[in-house]
């Protein structure tokens, strides 16, 4: 089995899309629709990489990012959000990459490949 990716996004369609794309690339994919679930699953499943939405109801992606990096600083986290201008506001310095959500999945896939070294 390939490396494990966790997708955290409140949008059902995006979770399904990412899951299928990354499974096609032979990764194991787990997903969560909110931050609370993400943290719980993170501890249990210990993914190699997390794709994290920023704007979610309840706990924001940034809170989740902080907690994940606290628990496991070496796990890769890609922040993914709707617009690039949030880039300046965020602590994405602690994240490993920042991706603007787009129907074109290539940049995200490339980033995942780059970080997971394949």
């Amino acid at each position, binding site marked *: 089995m390939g490396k494990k990716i966790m997708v955290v996004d409140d*949008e*059902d*369609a*995006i*979770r*399904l*899309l990412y899951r*299928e*794309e990354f499974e096609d690339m032979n990764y194991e994919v787990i997903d969560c629709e909110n931050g609370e679930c993400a943290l719980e699953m993170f501890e249990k499943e210990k993914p190699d990489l997390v794709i994290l939405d920023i*704007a979610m109801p309840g706990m924001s992606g*940034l809170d989740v990012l*902080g907690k994940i990096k606290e628990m496991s600083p070496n796990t890769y986290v890609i922040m993914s959000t*709707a*617009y690039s*201008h949030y*880039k*300046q*506001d*965020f*602590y*994405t*310095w*602690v994240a*490993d990459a*920042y991706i603007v*959500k*787009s*129907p074109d*999945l290539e940049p995200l896939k490339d980033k995942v490949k780059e970080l997971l070294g394949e």
Partner: protein
Amino acid sequence: MSKKSGDFDLLLYELAVLLEYEKDLRHTYFAALIIFMLAFNLDKIIIFKYSRSKKCFDPKVGLKKEYISEIKDIWEKNKSETGYFARWLLDMSCEKFNHTECNEKIQSLNLPCNEASRSIASTFITDEVKKINIQDIKNRRIQNILKEIEMTSAFYIPLLSRGKLTGFILCSGDSLEKERFEPFKSLLGIVIDNFINIKERDNIKTYLDKESSPYVNNQEQIYKLGKATATVAHEMKNALVGIIGLFNKLKKHIDKNEKAQRYTSVIEDELNKLYNFTLDINKYSKDLSVVQKTRVNLQELINKSIDMVEGINSNIVFSVYVDEKAKEAYVDKSHMERVFINLFKNSMEAYGDKKDGKITVVIVKSGNNIVIKIRDDAGGIKKDNFNNILKPFFTTKKQGTGLGLSIVRDIIKKHNGTVEFKNIDSKGLECTIRLPA
């Protein structure tokens, strides 16, 4: 060594001449960094500028020794004529430096920021010149920048103006002495600070010009509209990313039936149209939420805001006290004007038809804060309503939108301040705003 030191002094003079006449910040970076490289015989150099609005450091430009070898010849040939080199640099075009590999790398590595990143950055950003090793930098992105341009160890030179950091330089070369960087700490720092101030002044002017056009006249309407549209666009975009992605997968399962193909292509076009539309809306609404801070005279700002609301109820008397130490604040002028107008309107409306209402405004400095108190004697707020007054769309008035005080809260929040309300002796309401001075 003596020859070197002579060059150093001459170059320092050229730098002073250069900075006196420079008109453009980006050009200054290049010209000053070139002098820097020659003076210290550096291999590589990058300058970072502090962004006040973002509270973090952005890499601006970088240079390598090989880019400036021709310029070095010009310096060597003409150094006997003082001022020549500075003038030459002033006329120099920066185009070729903008597109060097080193610079494009630096510009593509955007450094986002917030609390976490700031605290990481603060581990090596200080007011002291020092030598740093790439391994000691905990921030992976700054590490990446240094790796990209193959800097394994570097000198860190803070740039200071009025005691505050305006940026810093990272440079490398052989046989560098820490002390020699000292004179540059404030020289470049002040120049950068000045450019930023000028730019901010121009920005606010453009903003005010824009604001006075009838199109953008009703700020509150625009604010509401902007906020709502941004939310709608955001939700739409998020959903569309998933929909279009899944649709692309679905297409592979659709057979070659002519009708099915046609429907598919129409749906695809429309989806893309919608998607591009969300991008456009976002560009538009972003402008409305921009905060442009300048040094603002609070007395003038209060006076102007009072003028604006006078028409609502001319029986109200304002008393204003602005302490000498708190006469200026670093705020977005038109946003703060909106804050005062909303608060004044709120108090004035609370007085209703009463004849002798009074509104007191007191502005003082307390610690590191500017404290603004606005007080009325119009009866205060009922206990039950206290928790709700800052919520959007909450109102006790027949004509109210319920947005006035929530806008106040949003604006103050954007200024990193706080706002609170309390009843005073059951006689009236006091609003206290605290802003970082």
